[in-house]
């Protein structure tokens, strides 16, 4: 008994110190398996966006199919159904997308509203992220460096705004926005997402600011810099990775937010999330177009996450290891 305990204890100690070759294989396998599982929905979306409408709803689902750009064409255009004679009289199709549409006995009558919605998403998503990070940085610096009366209470209040799901206050916000004339405006959505994100941003950034030794600023102040210059030249550069990580988190929230966007926006300031799932095609939802919209919608987040992934990793594990 005691011998068994000892031997198992030694194996455990051993495995902590260095991973055996078999352990590495196993760990690799788990990571790859997990990656595949998380990638399946993404791959499915990408695949569906390249299917023709009949392929997209065929049963059993087609894994191998003939790729088509029909989803993307449908996403960006509005079309009208015409008789075959009418289409024949039009003469040969001038572009590849005209050709795809005419095969379905339709003609393109204009652009869809997708680009408008996408543009709204960009303005609202990046605008609110900028504001949330800007305000958060200043507030976090203040909380970290100055004696603020009731500091702990204030920080708790700020955090408490996250204790309920934001949608719980949807009705009051809807009524307020209607009275203030903010509903269905980009400004309204920017303010709303900023308000939701600023708590996250203050708390995350305060952690980063706390870790930057005061001596840096004091050194700069003794060397003749003002407090603001010291903040700009010494604190900000060192908080860079924290700011980047915070910005990504804020952007992901504002970019993906669905419920408020559905409730508060319609004709004017609607963002992409409420728009994409209701793209109607022949006899119901146009799944390839929905998938195409989703694919394009994912790109900016993927791009920024990859761009800032090193900072992000540092941001997530921040404070875990002391220097």
């Amino acid at each position, binding site marked *: 008994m005691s011998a068994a305990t000892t031997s198992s204890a030694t194996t455990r100690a051993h495995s902590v110190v260095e991973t055996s070759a078999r352990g590495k294989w196993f760990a690799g396998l788990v990571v790859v398996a997990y990656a595949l599982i998380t990638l399946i929905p993404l791959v499915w979306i990408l695949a569906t966006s390249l299917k023709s409408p009949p392929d997209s709803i065929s049963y059993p689902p087609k894994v191998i199919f003939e790729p088509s750009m029909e989803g993307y064409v449908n996403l960006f255009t509005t079309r009208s159904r015409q008789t075959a004679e009418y289409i024949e009289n039009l003469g040969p199709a001038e572009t590849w997308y005209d050709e795809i549409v005419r095969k379905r006995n339709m003609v393109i009558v204009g652009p869809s509203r997708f680009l408008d919605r996408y543009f709204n998403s960009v303005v609202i998503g990046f605008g609110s992220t900028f504001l949330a990070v800007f305000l958060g940085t200043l507030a976090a610096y203040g909380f970290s460096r100055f004696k603020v009366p009731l500091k702990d209470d204030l920080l708790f209040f700020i955090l408490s705004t996250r204790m309920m799901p934001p949608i719980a206050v949807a009705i009051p916000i809807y009524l307020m926005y209607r009275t203030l004339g903010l509903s269905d405006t980009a400004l309204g959505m920017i303010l709303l997402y900023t308000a939701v994100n600023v708590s996250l941003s203050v708390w995350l950034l305060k952690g980063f600011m706390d870790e930057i*030794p005061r*001596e*840096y600023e*004091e*050194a*700069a*102040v*003794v*060397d*003749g*810099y*003002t407090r603001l*210059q010291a903040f700009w030249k*010494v604190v900000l*550069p*060192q908080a*860079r990775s924290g700011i980047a990580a915070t910005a990504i988190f804020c952007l992901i929230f504002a970019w993906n937010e669905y419920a408020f966007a559905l409730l508060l926006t319609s004709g004017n300031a609607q963002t992409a999330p409420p728009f994409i799932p209701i793209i109607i095609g022949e006899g119901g939802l146009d799944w390839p177009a929905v998938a195409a919209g989703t694919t394009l919608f994912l790109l900016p987040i993927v791009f920024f996450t990859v761009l800032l992934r090193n900072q992000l990793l540092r941001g997530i594990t921040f404070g875990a290891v002391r220097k």
Partner: protein
Amino acid sequence: MAEIRIENLHKTFGDFTAVRDSSFTVKDGEFFVMLGPSGCGKTTTLRMIAGLELPTLGRIFLDGEDVTTRRGGERDIAFVFQLFALYPHMNVRKNISFPLRMEGRPRKEVRERTEEVARMLQIDHLLESPVGGLSSGDRQRVALGRAVVRRAKAFLMDEPLGALDAQFRELMCEELRLLHLRVKATTVYVTHDQIEAMSMADRICIMNNAEVLQIGPPSEVYARPATRFVAGFVGSPSMNFIAGEGGLNAGSEAVQVRGSRIAIPRLHEDLTSSEAILGARPEHIHISDQGALRGRVFAVEYMGTRQLITVDTDSGRLRVRAPNTVRVNDGETVGLDFDSEKIVVFDSRTDRAVSSAFTGGGAGG
């Protein structure tokens, strides 16, 4: 170059008094060390001189000019922090030239002065490297460089060697001292390490519990401590204390210790209490057969040309620094003789040194 004068400086944080009514003057070009245990107020004093803390009461003069309420940047003072505070996002060159760039100097001058300082500190080959990968000694040099490059009126250093390991500290001590001789700037240096203080200072200012206890050259502070605290804090091993019996008056020349009579320097003033404490440095006690005080040898530490003998007596454990020619064994009973003219007498009530033929004039030092 400048003289720093401090008058009745006082600093409280809430209920806590960090510095109480301190006054002293640091002479132009002096290497002035503030020594004391942690929390004694030395760093707070330094930070007030630098303008990083505002005094509650009192004034600070730099070159005769009142700078008490001036911002740190307007005092023309350089500060070296304990953890160096090198900006991690800049390389060595940018770190050193940071203060110059603030002053808006022409680029050529910034480059020349930065390189000159780097050469002096022997880090010119590191100018383009990031500070992250430097050894602690090189970081220390960069921090010094950033201070020196400004040609500020005074240097303030807050335990700049505290983060270095022991061996390196000695080397940096020497370099700091050499740097001081070259630059000749008024330097206020804060440390809790009395060996550092003794080896570098022109004058030492010893603080404890927010108060300045004594200011003087290292040899003076060592030989004629103004209070029992100073006597115990300075010197390693510290001064031996022996309780004497019976009141002493001005003119007394001996004291009774456990029935033996020990000669002391002639006192100039009366004691306020009935008990005197004798202070004797380990090198002022000798092993002898007749000695007035007797005790049993507890331990012998051999230290090359010298040895440190610990003797248990009725008056407590005493440490004796003796030449290695003296032969004693653990457990042996020996007699102890004192260099009477070097004994310092403390008043047990006030803990202050009593003025005597040895400590001279006032007891204040």
